[in-house]
């Protein structure tokens, strides 16, 4: 089954010239890219293994222009693929061959930051980090901090329900967004949620989070701001054995501690990052844990003491506590740069995103190491250990024939294991185009069909980001057939 097929399907018949003419009538000239030369750089997002030239790229500058584009596309039955910073790793912003890519990067106004209500209203193209920067003068910040937070946008964060390294304590995007304003596919402006803590009716706000651009086009978001803790400190513990590190994670939770962050990196990941970031990681360790505590100085001192005790009991070979804010940020800088830093070891990588029960972390790591041998591809591991969220980075070289296919098979095997271990194929990166087939591993045909009906409640003709998120029932059946006889057959 071709990986491109879901964004290259031919069920839409679009008259390109008519579409261009209609869009030109409602947009300034420079807001449309129509030549191949200028559209090529839009053919993929952070997942470069999947590339598709779009029909047209539109660069609206405000909500009215977005609305005009959506209305034209709705009228002409043209697919619409919304795109933020295109840092996503699941191909959520991969164009559709017959669709318009709507880049929301120009909608980057921070409309308001209100320190009294602790909220900020921002356009979808505002970068995650710049929300926190704008809130900093009030000692507030926006809590979800995906590793790409320097570049990724709030619109994309909502679409993917982005997480980060602090979500065990502070939640995902869905926990920190109060209101989403957007456009339905027929171009109607809708608001999900409000400035209060809940809204009447169904929780459509929750539904918008993680909907991967399949239900509406986001044009404005109200986020909740969190008071900056008085103090935050991070402990780095080195382990000679990943199993000990896995046990330490369970031990910390069992001790009744909810760390502000709890991350694990294995040796390969440490070796990718340390030479570049100089974060101070132990290059001899088989794995390191980063455990953050925040709160009042007294609280932090107490919690760090308890965490350190658990880490020592679990067999940590070395423990360091950040001594000041600069050092804390340096300890985190290594973790946050982990994905691209792996780019120094390999021309290409695939980043997986399964989530499993924490107690099975070590078991999973063993299994990944075996798969790494089987597929003859290196794999560095970075985990949001506190959430059981795995990020194995499968290294390959796209210029070597066959390596991409092996990498994809390796990735699929990890995702199947994630489901088998009682988890999910994606914790925070989204299904996108990358994992659309593997959805059949986790969901029954009836469940997939329910997703399609839900989608149709918003988008009858399936124009919003087609080919992503949910496989067609035909593809599910194909996937299931292909799996018959394999050890991990999907649920029926």
């Amino acid at each position, binding site marked *: 089954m071709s990986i491109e097929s879901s964004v290259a399907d031919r069920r839409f018949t679009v008259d390109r010239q008519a579409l261009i003419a209609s869009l030109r009538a409602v947009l300034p000239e420079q807001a449309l890219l129509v030549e191949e*030369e200028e559209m090529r750089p839009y053919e993929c997002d952070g997942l*470069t293994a999947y590339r598709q030239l779009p029909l047209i790229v539109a660069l609206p500058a405000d909500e009215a222009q977005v609305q005009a584009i959506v209305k034209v596309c709705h009228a002409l039955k043209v697919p619409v693929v919304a795109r933020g910073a295109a840092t996503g790793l699941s191909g959520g912003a991969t164009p559709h061959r017959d669709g318009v890519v709507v880049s929301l990067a120009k909608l980057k106004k921070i409309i308001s930051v209100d320190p009294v209500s602790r909220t900020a209203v921002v356009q979808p193209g505002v970068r995650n980090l710049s929300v926190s920067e704008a809130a900093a003068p009030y000692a507030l910040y926006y809590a979800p901090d995906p590793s790409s937070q*320097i*570049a990724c946008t709030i619109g994309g964060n909502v679409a993917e329900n982005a997480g980060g390294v602090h979500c065990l304590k502070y939640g995902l995007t869905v926990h920190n967004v109060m209101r989403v304003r957007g456009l339905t596919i027929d171009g109607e402006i809708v608001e999900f949620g409000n400035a209060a803590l809940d809204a009447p009716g169904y929780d459509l706000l929750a539904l918008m989070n993680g909907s991967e651009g399949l239900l509406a086009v986001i044009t404005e978001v109200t986020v909740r701001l969190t008071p900056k803790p008085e103090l935050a400190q991070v402990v780095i513990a080195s382990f000679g054995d990943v199993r000990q590190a896995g046990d330490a994670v369970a031990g910390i939770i069992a001790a009744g501690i909810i760390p502000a962050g709890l991350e694990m990196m294995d040796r390969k990941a440490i070796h990718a990052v340390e030479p*570049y970031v100089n974060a101070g990681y132990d290059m001899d360790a088989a794995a390191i844990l980063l455990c953050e505590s925040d709160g009042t100085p007294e609280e932090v001192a107490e919690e760090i003491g308890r965490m350190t005790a658990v880490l020592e009991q679990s067999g940590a070979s070395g423990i360091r506590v950040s001594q000041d804010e600069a050092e804390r940020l340096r300890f985190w800088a290594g973790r946050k740069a982990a*994905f691209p830093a792996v*780019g120094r070891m390999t021309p*290409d990588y695939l980043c997986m995103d399964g989530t499993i029960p924490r107690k099975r972390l070590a078991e999973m790591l063993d299994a990944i190491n075996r798969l790494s041998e089987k597929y003859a591809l290196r794999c560095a591991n970075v985990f949001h250990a506190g959430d059981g969220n795995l990020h194995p980075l499968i290294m390959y070289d*796209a210029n070597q024939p066959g390596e991409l296919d092996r990498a994809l098979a390796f990735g699929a095997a990890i995702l199947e294991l994630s489901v088998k271990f009682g988890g999910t194929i994606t914790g925070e990166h989204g299904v996108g185009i990358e994992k659309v087939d593997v959805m059949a591993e986790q969901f029954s045909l009836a469940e997939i069909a329910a997703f399609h009906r839900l989608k149709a409640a918003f988008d009858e003709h399936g124009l919003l980001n087609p080919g992503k998120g949910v496989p067609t029932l035909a593809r599910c059946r194909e996937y299931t057939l292909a799996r018959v006889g394999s050890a991990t057959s999907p649920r029926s």
Partner: protein
Amino acid sequence: MQTNLADFIKDTPAGREADAILRSCVHCGFCTATCPTFQLLGDELDGPRGRIYLIKEMLEGQAVSQTTQLHLDRCLSCRACETTCPSGVRYHRLLEIGREVMEERVPRPLVVRATRFLLCEALPRRWIFRPAVAIGQLMRPLLPAALAEKVPLAAGGAARPWPRRAGHKRRMIALAGCVQPILTPNTNAATARVLDRLGIELIEAPAANCCGALRYHLHAQEKALDDMRQVIDAWWPDVESGRVEGFVMTASGCGEHVREYGKLLKDDPAYADKAARIAAMTRDACEVLAAEQEPLAALLRQAGADSGERVAFHSPCTLQHAQKIRGVVEALLTAAGYRLAPVADPHLCCGSAGTYSISQPVLAGQLRDNKLAAMNAASPALLVTANIGCQTHLQSGSKVPVRHWIELIDERLNVGA
């Protein structure tokens, strides 16, 4: 990233280098966040990731037009993306290769070529540039506003004299430069006075003119190499005789370039070694002062002045991103008793970027105004930077004086004198 370079370049040294750089990029997009033009324009094509993609397409043999040219031209070469890039992509080098191929592929209109020729010939030559500026400044009141803004203003403090030769044992050479002695003559004079107090004699070699950066970035590679050879010839006798211990750069743009001499002249057997040696002996003025931290602190104590004057510092891209010198000037100013005003987005370029303010006036103006707004947010008394280009560009839009940081150190040392 997957690559498939075309035959015309695949097996050339430039092709191999470009391929390696392209393959180190994983397309994560972090670079877009700190790219000044992407921040202004919000188009993938105006950020490093998009430009890398455009260059990749071109090197893979796709047809290119003025579209690619426009987006590559808009790059400031500020290298903020390289500071941000976690994968170590050597973007500026890829851009150089890309621009060279593009120059061959996409012809430029005559008027653009003429402008470039003029810049290439006039700026690096003091005997042309000095009278041109003088005439321009005389005519300024008569010129339309848009044109008047282009006439460089003198910036910085009034030129005070160089110290009398004190016969110090330690001696260093400052690059006189091409534009700087005309527009900001006090910069090198102030450096000489400060170093004099530290027991170092600063001299200039009159024959060393432009460092070559200007023409290098205007795609006049051969002429640029000639500029560089001229500088090396002017300096080499003092290196050989051991008369000087090093070279002090008071313009970070020149400093960056001189430090690249070794690489740029590696294929010229007559100059390769000399160039490498000189590059290794080159320091930015702030590094020289930082190395004299203790005697400088003693002098400052002796001068006794601590005005607590609030200043806003803009670190030039050539200092913070290219030379990766960060926090050094800030520490010197703080040590001298100045209060540093916070400046938002300190990584962003001011829009000067060599001749960018002439070739891309609209973007350069927006970047300048944004930078000035950020610098003036806390109402400082002075704006401070470390490069002639940034200084005059910022001054062209600012009522608040823009100085070179060394002038402030100089004044502080001479308060009691």
